[in-house]
């Protein structure tokens, strides 16, 4: 029983569309009912929001391409200035019917020119009787452009007096977009996140043909068990699934276990996935490095992330400099006399810890300090006398230190 039905489009196309958008049928049917037939009016602007990889861009593209509705698709991160954005829309509109891309972009500086050129382009492409869709992906970038761009796009139907609908796709909720004096409110549509069942279904679709679907589903189950608490992003999970599958299959390939020996397979893959969480998931090592390491079959402990390589052996004075810097940044200035002088007086027990200092200094972060203080602390903590010539030496070390710290 097909889920998507619409009088304006042939059922075969709709069936094809349905197969391309798993777990998103209700959103697509809502969009279809809002769009109506080709020449009917629709909301002047639609705002679609949802998490990363919840399918907004993909569903929009698939829907417009499968039903062959006239549309323009622009990514606002690519076209980050208003001029690039407006010109891109006009170019795509001009190339709508022709296959080859024309070389000459139409110069378009202001929205005023854009409205005029847009109307001309619609006439030249014979699109006056159908609804034209302008889709702006990553629409949160529109807020960074000139102040009139976002409100003008929301009203494009009114400003051009043509049958056009603007669709904005974004991760961020509409309340963060609204300008101060208000604007034309778009129709807001939410793309819900995929539930764990949906994720399982979609990820299992990518199974390689050599293995059975059940085998792959079991693998996906294990993967989701480890990563679902941390990350629900479909793209990340697909990436991790693709990288780790060969390791999972190793026992079967080496004939140590059958496909159904879930316990053995789990024991094999589990430490691997945990390691993956610390390295590939955090992008500390690249996926090609990861695959190479897997092939080497070395000890798992050898896989180290980028952060592990920050442990360097420093020379003698550099170590003391580092310690002195640490002390200087976390101790308040008034305690220096007490800690670092050999003959210090007693500090009166005044209530010098003010309210905001009660939060541990380690939570507030390191504080800046002058160079003299650093050197003073250094001289007091190093046991033997630091020769003055060492001062110049330490300046060099200091520079090295700064480069190390700022990494």
């Amino acid at each position, binding site marked *: 029983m097909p889920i998507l*039905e619409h*009088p304006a489009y042939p059922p075969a196309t709709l069936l094809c569309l349905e197969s391309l958008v798993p777990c998103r049928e209700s959103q697509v049917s809502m969009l279809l*009912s*809002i769009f*109506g*037939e080709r020449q*009917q*009016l*629709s*909301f*002047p602007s639609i705002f679609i*929001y*949802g*998490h*990363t990889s919840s399918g907004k861009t993909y569903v929009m593209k698939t829907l417009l391409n499968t039903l062959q509705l006239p549309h323009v698709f622009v990514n606002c991160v690519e076209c980050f200035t208003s001029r690039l954005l407006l010109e891109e829309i006009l170019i795509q509109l001009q190339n709508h019917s022709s296959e080859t891309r024309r070389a000459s972009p139409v110069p378009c500086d*202001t*929205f*005023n020119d854009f*409205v005029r050129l847009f109307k001309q382009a619609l006439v030249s492409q014979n699109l006056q009787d159908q609804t034209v869709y302008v889709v702006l992906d990553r629409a949160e970038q529109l807020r960074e452009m*000139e102040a*009139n761009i976002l*409100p*003008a796009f929301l*009203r494009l*139907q009114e*400003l051009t007096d043509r049958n056009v609908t603007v669709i904005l796709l974004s*991760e*961020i*909720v*509409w*309340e*963060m977009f609204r300008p101060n*004096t*208000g*604007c034309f*409110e778009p*129709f*807001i*549509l*939410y793309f*819900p*996140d995929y539930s*764990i069942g949906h994720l399982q279904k979609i990820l299992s679709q990518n199974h390689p043909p050599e293995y059975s679907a059940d085998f792959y589903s079991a693998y996906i189950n294990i993967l989701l068990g480890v990563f*679902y*608490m*941390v*990350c*629900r992003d479909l793209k990340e999970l697909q990436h991790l699934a693709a990288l780790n599958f060969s390791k999972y299959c190793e026992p079967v390939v080496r004939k140590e276990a059958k496909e159904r020996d879930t316990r053995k397979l789990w024991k094999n893959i589990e430490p691997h996935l945990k390691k993956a*969480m*610390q390295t590939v*998931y*955090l992008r*500390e090592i690249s996926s090609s490095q990861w695959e190479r390491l897997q092939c080497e079959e070395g000890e798992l402990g050898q896989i180290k992330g980028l*952060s592990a390589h920050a442990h360097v052996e420093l020379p003698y004075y550099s170590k003391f400099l580092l310690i002195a810097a640490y002390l200087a940044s976390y101790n308040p200035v008034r305690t220096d006399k007490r800690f670092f002088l050999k003959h210090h007086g007693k500090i009166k027990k005044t209530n010098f810890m003010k309210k905001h200092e009660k*939060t541990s200094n*380690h*939570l*507030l*972060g390191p504080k*800046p300090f002058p160079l003299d203080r650093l050197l003073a602390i250094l001289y007091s903590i190093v046991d033997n006398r630091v020769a003055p010539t060492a001062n110049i030496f330490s300046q060099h070390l200091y520079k090295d230190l700064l480069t190390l710290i700022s990494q």
Partner: protein
Amino acid sequence: MAVTQICMTMVQKMLRERLCHHRAMGKLFGIDQQYKHLLELLKQTTVCGESNSALIIGPRGSGKTALLNRVLKDLREMKQVKENLLEVHLNGLLQTNDKVALKEITRQLHLENVVGDKVFGSFAENLAFLLEALRKGNRTSSCPVLFVLDEFDLFVHHKNQTLLYNLFDISQSAQTPVTVIGLTCRQDILELLEKRVKSRFSHRRIYLMNSFAFKQYIRIFKEQLSLPAEFPDKAFAQKWNSNIQLLTEDKTVQDILQNLFHYSKDLRSLNFLLMLAVSNVTVRHPLITASDLQEASKQYRMDSKANIVHGLSVLEICLIIAMKHLNDVYEGEPFNFQMVYNEFQKFIQRKAHCMYNFEKPVVMKAFEHLLQLELVKPIERPSVRSQREYLLMELLLDNNQIMDALQAYPNCPTDVKQWAASSLSWL
């Protein structure tokens, strides 16, 4: 009764044009006085040749542009006015400075050839030249010109308010009958005008305040959805209209409308709601039901932040709860990642049985995802000097939203729920 697809298509077409199109050619509700006032004003200009200026002020969606378009349409149909009125439509969103505005005026008056390559000293000279050129075209008397400035409050921000000054000046002094009508949503528009501009303005204001009561609102609902008498399929039109009448008497529908009325009185929101309900009408489902309207209303009033929180992973939810506790303890003072991580560690060590102790970089990645979604925002711009973990931030969700979202969160571990609901006593 079998309904044909053609009939449905016609119904959809008619209602969509009525509800979505910006030129509301249907009835205007509740603004008869303002309509008469504006019509009189424009008639004076076109028939008697008087210059004038007026501002139409009203909140967004109250019908300013619709009113003006309607008045202009009726005016153009009058015998005396036919082809005797030149219109120039400017919009603050499109003409962002005075030079562009002047070029647009030239273009709309079809005077590009006349202006050619002339260079003018000042704005005033250029405008005077344009009006003079109009005069020469029409020998005996000058044709009245109507300037419509939409988003009037944006023109106020141009340099020296040159355009406004010149337009109002001409409307006070020139021989060509010129009327300037501004449309704006700002009630304090007069304070934004410069002194010399303000003095040339006639201070005539027309207010559109959505001033109808709930009974009238229900009547408007009925009229917006009713099919007109000229509809080809008379039998269906009658059935449709009687269904709409039933809906207006239905208690659930009245509740829905009451909710919307309390939230926002303007007709644009009502039109959106009706459009959603109408889009569900198909051959299988030819009449609107109360449940359609209920679905539409739910769709319209979703809390978007709660929806976003619904899609977060368990680790990210824990971070949000940690931030909530920090806000409770420190009474809304800004926090940084290190503090949040500290709280999270306390939870893991003492209470959690099901949460694995994730490494710090993994928690950092989850935190950065929250930053990307703008649920957490830094107080100052991140500079090169300070480390990322110590940058001060604030949470953009309040406690009620968090607790509501947690109720709806699927498969939330019990420890996490209990931690969220716990007070500060165990700290």
